[in-house]
């Protein structure tokens, strides 16, 4: 019987495991294939300017948010409020810098960054408390806070005017966050600051998710929250912490965005939450959580960005790029659902 049991075990469960790897590999292959195709069709695609300066630098801020989102989603949660949170953080950052500009950049910038981080953490805490503490459905909570936070951003800017740091000196100094180029690979191959920030957050994220007890519990909650709770895991705190983390990554992203555009607008980043969630899902973290990872999310994000970039190079309009992006998500998720259904029984 033992052989029989093992046989049926293998029959039932080998496939989903190999499928997981297959899916991850297929997305990576798709990414590599697209890049190859792109460089073949467009000589500028594989240039350092296009890839690093343009594509990666632009993806960095959303990538930072996607890291926070991955934690939330692996724990089985969901956060629709990230774009609004980022908007509030941007506005707070600009307003505080503006207010503190008389005291000089050395004080204004760190103080403003600190306050912005606290705001991001605070907004994440609100989500976390409502979801983990009170037990309201994450979709409902973050849909509501998405509206509330957006409203707060509008109120802070007096109805949606673009805010700018008045002090030109200070503004230029803060632009360093976006403009600075680090000659990591020699003078010809400089890496922009947003990419460096992303990489730092990414490495910290990997450590937190893969190597700490906290990360271990994030996976446990996504796998079976009730069982984790019964095993003595403080599931409420861990779940809340994922939203706090997500809020914090929004604050970091806000700093990049503000440095990039030198302004803060309450209505900015609308719809970006969907791009972030799409990257996480395309990467392979399922909606119910329990599996996935940051590398997957990075691949998912890059896939979406490369497709977008590629279409832009062929002068495909933004409206068509949206259609294509949406279709890619459907295809990836459909393949996932079909393969899972096949492997289930």
């Amino acid at each position, binding site marked *: *019987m*033992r*052989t*029989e*049991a093992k046989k*049926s*075990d*293998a*029959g*039932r*469960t*080998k496939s*989903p*495991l190999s499928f997981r790897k297959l899916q991850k590999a297929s997305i990576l292959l798709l990414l590599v294939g697209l890049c190859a195709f792109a460089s073949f069709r467009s000589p500028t695609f594989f240039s350092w300017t296009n890839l690093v300066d343009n594509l990666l630098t632009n993806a960095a801020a959303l990538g930072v948010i996607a890291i926070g989102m991955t934690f939330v989603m692996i724990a089985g949660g969901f956060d629709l409020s990230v774009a609004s949170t980022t908007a509030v953080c941007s506005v707070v950052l600009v307003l505080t810098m503006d207010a503190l500009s008389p005291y000089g950049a050395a004080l204004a910038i760190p103080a403003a960054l600190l306050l912005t981080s606290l705001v991001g953490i605070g907004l994440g805490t609100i989500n976390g408390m409502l979801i983990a503490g009170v037990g309201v459905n994450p979709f409902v909570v973050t849909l509501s806070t998405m509206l509330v936070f957006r409203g707060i951003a509008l109120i802070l800017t007096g109805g949606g005017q673009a805010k700018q740091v008045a002090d030109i000196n200070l503004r230029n100094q803060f632009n360093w966050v976006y403009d600075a180029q680090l000659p990591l690979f020699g003078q010809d191959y400089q890496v922009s600051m947003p990419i460096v920030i992303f990489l730092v957050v990414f490495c910290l994220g990997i450590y937190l998710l893969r*190597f*700490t*007890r*906290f*990360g*271990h519990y994030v*996976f*446990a909650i*996504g*796998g*079976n929250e*009730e*069982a*984790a*709770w*019964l*095993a*003595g*895991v403080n599931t409420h705190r861990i779940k809340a912490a994922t939203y706090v983390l997500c809020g914090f990554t929004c604050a970091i992203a806000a700093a990049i965005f503000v440095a990039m555009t030198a302004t803060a607008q309450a209505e900015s980043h609308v719809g970006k939450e969907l791009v972030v969630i799409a990257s996480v899902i395309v990467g392979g973290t399922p909606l119910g959580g*329990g*599996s996935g990872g940051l590398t997957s999310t990075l691949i998912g994000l890059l896939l979406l960005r490369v497709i977008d970039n590629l279409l832009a190079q062929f002068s495909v309009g933004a409206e068509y790029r949206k259609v294509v992006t949406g279709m890619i998500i459907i295809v990836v998720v459909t393949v996932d659902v079909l393969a899972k259904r096949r492997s289930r*029984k």
Partner: protein
Amino acid sequence: MFANDNLILQMQGIVKEFSGTRALDKVDFDVRCGEVHALIGENGAGKSTLMNVLAGRFNNYHGRITFDGHQVRITNPRQARDMGIAIIYQELSVLANFTVAENIMLGDEKAGRWTRKLDRAFINAGARDIIDYLRFDLDPDEPVERLSKARQCLVEIACAVRRKVKLLVFDEPTASLGSEDVDKLFEVIKDLKSRGLAIVYISHRLAELPIIADRVTVLRDGGKTGTMEIPECRISDLTRMMLGHDLAEVFPEKTNQPGKVILKVDGLSRPGAFENISFELREGEILGIAGLVGSGRTEIIRAIFGADKAHGKVVFQGRPIVGRSPYLCRALGIGMVPENRKQQGSITGRPVSENLNISILGRLSGVLGFQSSRRLTSQARLMIEQMKIHPPLPDIDIENLSGGNQQKVIVGRWLAAESKVIIFDEPTQGIDVGTKSQMYRLIVELACQGRAIILISSELIEITKLADRILVIRDGRLVREMQGPGTDEDALFAECVRKDNPE
């Protein structure tokens, strides 16, 4: 009750009510260290409710619980767990995305003081200790989703032992295991017992008790009917204690006459679930399908009804059904009363009338699909009367009906749709004996009217008493066909669990 130092758990006068109905009525129950105490009773007798009280799932029970020498009030599952009570449910609560070791050590991980780094060596060493101590055949690094159900059960036991469990409750563990796995589990239980653990063993398979249990407590309709030492009790006594009367009284006389073939299943297969199933069903016939939970019996009838995809042919009244789906089957005259009433049967939150008429709304609607509520209600009243649904109110939410009456509504749905074939999947699960008896009468009556019935049940006695023919399903294959009348329940059980000779 006499004093006994050995008692680890004493529950006295436990009462638990669910919105007015008493699920437990002054139940006394105790367990000694180093014994296996069986808790038996029919579905709905209160076994699981009693154990859920113990597990801390309710905080509004009445009665006294003494555990390990202290009087306690158990109000949440964490408290129960911390006291040393572990319940291994049929639906195992392991983390499929974790390895064996990670599961065993969940909640007891160590992390570095400053780095907060997870100590994986500690997890592996700790898990290995427990596995060695229990002499389980488990690989700590194996992902749990790759294990069979029996082995997942071992993981849960290891988990409980790691938490220094004192009382271990098994909730119908053998319901979904094959016979070899059952033997293995019994060995494990005996080993745990010899280590001084107190074990509660919930089951409704009486035949298992002499092998595994030391004492047995019988529950019926929320009350306790007695506790006995196993060596002193006879199976027939236990049956009577469980049912409240002899079995023969419950089942109606079979008066149906099988006629011509109405449904033919030919070579139905679904890889991984079942293979090459072929059989015929006649008008006026009750066809029993017997097999363990997980043998593929539910999957087979779901495939026939078109709820799942499968290869093979299903011929209904001489014509193959192309593109099977529940929608098409309903239109042709095949109905199914699904296994899980709550999730797949009742449309909760909606009135009885809608639940009764859902399959015939097309027929009842007027111009432009207009639904006349008067028509719906009068049609519903007709069915309520015919099915003796109680209370006879078409407008109340179906959730307010008892399990048995909800089941009648779902059967009534298919009668209203004038189905010629009705598939019953565990129709008596969780309903009381009185309603069960009515359900049996109804099934025979439907067959007498010339309808063809497929009956799946885990309670094999239902099949032997009601079915004209019995198909035995084992590991997804149709292994035997038996005659219904005259087949002995034990013989049928033996057939369901018999092991195949490999190759």
